[in-house]
């Protein structure tokens, strides 16, 4: 389990995270969602010791994570920034990963690279954005670590490669139990994949729920404007839309009984996310 307790992170001009508390338990696929600048990458960088928290503590499997080689060795983090110099060949990155982490499966990495059409002989500087992402995500999938963290893994990937990534991720997940944290903007693509949803907003956790509960969290009613307003007054309305005399109201909470003159549709994860983070 990865635990973040009362984490605060201040940069020169901004406080990115404010007394944030979250934990990522074993053998689950987490979706870490948030708008640009919400604090997702900062949180992941803190967990992996790439940034030092201003306040608070981080634990991996009960051990303090900060400056702890053993704890950090259990995590493989595919970050948005590329930490390898442009002159480094992908093959060399695999070798180094193996050096630092004996559990790294080089054959699997090479096989995976071939599936994606990545040439391990290429240097990082020669790769396109998409192929840089591919090189990094292959390294993380092949790492053999217990915690796989992905920050925007499919950045720049075409549709075919995105699908391939999700398939390979699930195959890897099935083969050896691990905890996956997927931080992404492509909510619709991953909504069926993830078992647990964590939403960050303005540096704190807005929502932390199993994915199956998301469907019941909110709904949309539509119908004549007067009918909708009448029925939805007093309820937790996240937002409304109007087209002519027709109104849609997005509501958070229990459905209860909905009258015949109104139509109810469920709020999927992406819509729920947009409405919750719009405020």
């Amino acid at each position, binding site marked *: 389990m990865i635990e973040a307790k009362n984490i605060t992170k201040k940069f020169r001009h901004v406080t990115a995270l404010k007394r944030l508390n979250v934990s990522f338990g074993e053998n689950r696929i987490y979706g870490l969602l948030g708008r640009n600048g919400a604090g997702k990458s900062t949180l992941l960088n803190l967990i992996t*010791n790439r940034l030092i928290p201003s306040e608070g503590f981080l634990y991996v499997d009960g051990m303090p994570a900060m400056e702890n080689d053993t704890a950090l*060795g259990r*995590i493989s983090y595919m970050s948005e920034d590329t*930490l390898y110099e*442009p002159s480094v060949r992908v093959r060399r990155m695999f070798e180094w990963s193996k050096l630092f*982490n004996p559990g790294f499966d080089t054959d699997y990495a090479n096989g995976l690279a071939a599936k994606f059409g990545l040439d391990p002989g290429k240097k990082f500087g020669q790769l396109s954005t998409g192929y840089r992402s591919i090189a990094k995500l292959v390294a993380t999938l092949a790492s053999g670590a217990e915690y796989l963290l992905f920050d925007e893994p499919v950045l720049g990937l075409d549709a075919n490669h995105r699908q391939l990534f999700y398939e390979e991720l699930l195959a890897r997940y099935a083969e050896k139990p691990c905890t996956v944290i997927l931080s992404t903007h492509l909510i619709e693509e991953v909504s069926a994949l993830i078992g647990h949803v964590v939403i960050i907003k303005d540096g704190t956790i807005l929502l932390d729920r199993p994915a199956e509960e998301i469907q019941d969290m909110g709904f949309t009613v539509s119908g004549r404007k007067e009918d909708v307003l009448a029925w939805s007054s007093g309820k937790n309305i996240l937002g409304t839309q109007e087209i002519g005399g027709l109104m849609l109201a997005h509501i958070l909470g229990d459905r209860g009984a909905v009258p015949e003159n109104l139509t109810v549709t469920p709020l999927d994860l992406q819509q729920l996310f947009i409405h919750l983070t719009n405020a």
Partner: protein
Amino acid sequence: MKLKQMTLWQLKANSTAFLIFYGILLALAVTLTIVFFSLAGSGYTGTFNFGAAAIGAFFLFVVGCSSFSENLHIAFANGVSRRTHFLSFLLLSVIASAVTAAFGVAVDAIPSLSPATWQPLFTESPWAQFLFFLALNMALMALGYFIAGAYYRMNKAARWIVSICIPAGLIVLAVFTVSAAEVPGMPLSAFAQIFIWMASSLMNAALFWIVFAALFFLFGWLVTRRAGVRQQQAAA
């Protein structure tokens, strides 16, 4: 602790540069020695010194500078703590300094193989030379690392200020110290005395540089211990 792996990485990452450097140095030393001695045969007198050890010291300063950013990022990428990264750099420094000092001193001794007239730079024993250059190398590696680290941590404004003021300040200091050396009682004459003491023997100088090295390794650690990842992309 991933110390062994990180140190191995440091050695591997630098090995090509070192081999090329040693190779060039050796080639130059041999060539110049041959040239000198063929000239000496025709009545040409003078002193010849290659200064391989001195060049080595400067080379290690550059190695120190290049040992901060990329190495720190490799540590981050592979779950290695800053402490382990710094300790591995220390180990690298000791090994690299010792090997380069030994190599430098040995190469500088090449001209002495010939019976022709030749003035060595140092009058003291090779062992003393080795210790001196070991200390100097470590000091320069620490200094290079610290400078690279300090620049990594600083923001743009600080970098400009430091880049202008520190060299300017050092020049002023040097001028005052030199003039103070002649005149006792001047404010910096005590400071100048240290340099005079240092220049009087290689062992004194070695001692000075060891203290210098220790100090700057400490500064280097201070600049490392809370270094964060810089949100930069590799060339697109």
